[in-house]
């Protein structure tokens, strides 16, 4: 079980801020494929991955990152702080 979080327009498109996901995915990319295959809203939200950033256990990383043993994975658009 892994905690999956969504922020900004990804949260809005997926329709929830977080969920617990049962998965055997080894990497972020595999988790994304699994989610996309589950429901249309995920397929839409993840249709253009160049517009999506990911953090594993609150550290910014990329889609090839391993998630085995991770507590949380977060998806969000490019940040606009400052």
């Amino acid at each position, binding site marked *: 079980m892994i905690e999956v979080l969504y922020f*900004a327009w990804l949260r809005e498109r997926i329709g929830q801020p977080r969920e617990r996901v049962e998965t055997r995915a080894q990497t972020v990319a595999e988790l994304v494929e699994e989610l996309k295959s589950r429901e249309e809203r995920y397929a839409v939200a993840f249709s253009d991955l160049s517009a999506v950033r990911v953090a594993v256990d609150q550290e910014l990383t990329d889609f090839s990152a391993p998630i085995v043993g991770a507590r949380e994975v977060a998806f969000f658009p490019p940040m606009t702080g400052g």
Partner: protein
Amino acid sequence: MDIRVQAEPFDFGAECANFGQGRRDVGAVVTFMGVVRDDSGALTEMEIEHYPGMTERAIAKIAQQARDRWALADVKVIHRHGRMRPGEAIMMVATAARHRKAAFEAAEYLMDYLKSRAPFWKKEYGADGAQWVAAKDEDEDALSRW
């Protein structure tokens, strides 16, 4: 080092007042304040979403990197989340160093990284609805100078 992520407004003057003071090794203090700007004339509010937990970690890491790289005597970062109106302060950074070059560079480094590497997302509310602020290529490009 003083890092705060908060919904409440902060008092820029009061935050500047004692920063970097009372030391003999500080020759230069630089501060930056980001303010909600209304380019269209139709902005009613800005909302900033953030990622609790990661936000504090990301800012602490960025601030520590700046502190080490420019041998800063002190660093301060305050960043708000939630809703705020045009003219309100969004965030600030402050740096204290021996020389002005280091204080300026460190403040610009903090801003460049906070802009693109701290998990905040801005949404603008106006007469014509709400929309997420898109990240700019130039903000990402700005990181390449460091």
